[in-house]
């Protein structure tokens, strides 16, 4: 078992944190093996950002992703750059607010979801779009449970933000639940 | 001059990084913002040509017509 997940967008969207939570949940609470690598441009803020996570049931033999099993893009630039590097049977997810996608080009499953608008409108907090997306990704991935993720979120997020993050995570899972059918 | 009177404040939106400095520092609330924070001149007539916005814009994206001597 080996899953390669790429979360991409802009610096400041919290994708590095999302990837880290995913990997940590897999490692510590699912007893799996994970790696996560971010890359970013030279900007401290606002540049391109990418967070690659691999989850496997044995030590990861090669920690870098060429083609992803799941690709999340939260900016048009990221979409342009990475949409072509998803496995044919892989899953492509975009943030509806930022990405104008061409779903036909992608043979596998495709989701255009409203992470950022939902965060803003339903949770009153732009910043948790990443956790909604994380929920959706984890839901599609299927190997890291909501509870495992939540345990890590509780450790990594200041206590006053735990509630909204929990809501966001559940919202994310639910998006997929709905859509999956 | 036969030209149309230029507004006293101009923003080169292409250059703007949406830092909010001009909006927050303008003593006359000349600026508003759109959905994603881009400043717009909403009360041009209030402008006293104090230059605060132009002097502080980190992208050199604002120009204010100089006050008469």
């Amino acid at each position, binding site marked *: 078992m080996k899953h390669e997940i790429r979360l991409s967008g802009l610096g400041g969207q919290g994708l590095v944190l999302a990837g880290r939570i995913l990997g940590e949940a*897999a490692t510590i609470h699912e007893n799996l093996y994970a*790696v*996560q690598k971010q890359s970013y441009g030279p900007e401290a803020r606002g540049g391109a950002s990418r967070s690659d996570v691999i989850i496997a049931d044995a030590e990861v033999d*090669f920690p870098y992703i060429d083609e992803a099993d799941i690709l999340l893009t939260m900016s048009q630039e990221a979409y342009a750059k990475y949409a072509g590097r998803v496995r044919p049977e892989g899953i492509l997810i975009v943030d509806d607010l930022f990405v104008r996608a061409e779903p036909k080009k992608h043979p596998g499953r495709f989701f255009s979801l409203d992470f950022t608008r939902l965060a803003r409108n339903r949770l009153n907090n732009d910043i948790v779009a990443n956790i909604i997306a994380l929920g959706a990704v984890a839901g599609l991935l299927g190997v890291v449970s909501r509870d495992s993720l939540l345990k890590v979120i509780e450790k990594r997020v200041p206590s006053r933000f735990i509630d909204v993050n929990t809501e966001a995570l559940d919202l994310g899972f639910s998006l997929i639940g709905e859509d999956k059918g | 001059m036969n030209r149309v009177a230029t507004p006293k404040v101009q923003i080169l939106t292409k250059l703007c990084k949406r830092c909010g400095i001009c909006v927050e520092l303008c003593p006359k609330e000349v600026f508003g913002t759109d959905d994603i924070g881009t400043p717009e001149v909403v009360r041009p007539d209030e402008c006293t040509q104090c230059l605060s916005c132009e002097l502080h814009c980190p992208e050199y994206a604002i120009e204010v017509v100089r006050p008469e001597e």
Partner: protein
Amino acid sequence: MASKTKRFFMLGNEACAAGAIAAGVRFFAGYPITPSTEIAEYMARELPRVGGQFIQMEDELAGIGAVIGASAAGVKAMTATSGPGFSLMQEFISYSAVVEIPCVVVNIMRGGPGGGAATVPAQGDVMQARWGTQGDHPVIVLSAATVPEMYYLTIKAVNFSEKYRIPVILLSDESIGHLRETTEIRPTESMEIVNRRKPDLPPEQFEPLKADMGQAPPMACIGDGYRVKGYCRLTRNERGDPGAVPDVQDRLMRRQESKITANLADIHMFEDMGAGEADVVVLAHGSNVRTALCACARAREKGIRAGVFKITTLWPFPYAPLNRAIGRAKGVLVPELNLGQIIGEVERACKGRAPVVGLNKVDGTLITINEIFDAIVELNKS
């Protein structure tokens, strides 16, 4: 024991810092530089919690200087940096070797030369780690290939440094320093932790520079009550007094060199991962190891006998073991994130017995499995 092993999802740089603390490091001084800074940040947070000290100094020279000071005062100490800062530490590394004050220098390599590209991996400082300093002196250089190795090799580095009273350089690169990975950490009690030898003679009889060949002398530290001398310029007699007498100088230099040459078996860490039976041997270290292993696996699937010779101890270079391992090889491939550095040593080791070919990348990206695989296929043809 396995039950006590703990799992973490750690950054390579954090694993390094955590390993240092496990090894007993209680002092860190440094100067920020990407992509090593998380080591300093971890130390700033954790050291005061375990009674240790962190200080950010005014530059890298001061960073390693303070480390050497703390070590002279008896505390295990470490610094971390990247290329430009590593260059600034060279004078002090040479000094540390000659005064035999242990210290560990971690270099998380980034794109070089010059200011370089701070956020991309490279292996441009491999020769510098051995030869960057003035004068001849011994040094040990290790290269970490994974995040868990960052943890365990840091412990090794501290151990070597204390045992041989020698500067030890731990190399890694951005692609590992900034990689998060599942890391299983064994309880510290289960690991060998080496502490420098203390004098076994009273101050009146103790000669700070006296030791047999192959050995570091016991170390009297500042504050131990030994009125310790001899932490100074090159030429000192065994009592530690200065004076440029040729045979004294010769003895000191040769004894220091012998700490390496007489202990190769202890210091050499390498792994023959199918190289012994291979037609094509890939010599790899650091971030190229996993890539090379994947490429060789693929090659074997295609019927090509390919194997990896992984080196963890870069210096002293394992000439003899490598020479033995290439027994039946038609060719040796040396992938490097530089314009060809360790390949020179491979050529020396191979003594013309097999062609040695480099695969070099300096554009800031990692060498890919495909690139190594293609090179193996090519070499196999010849």
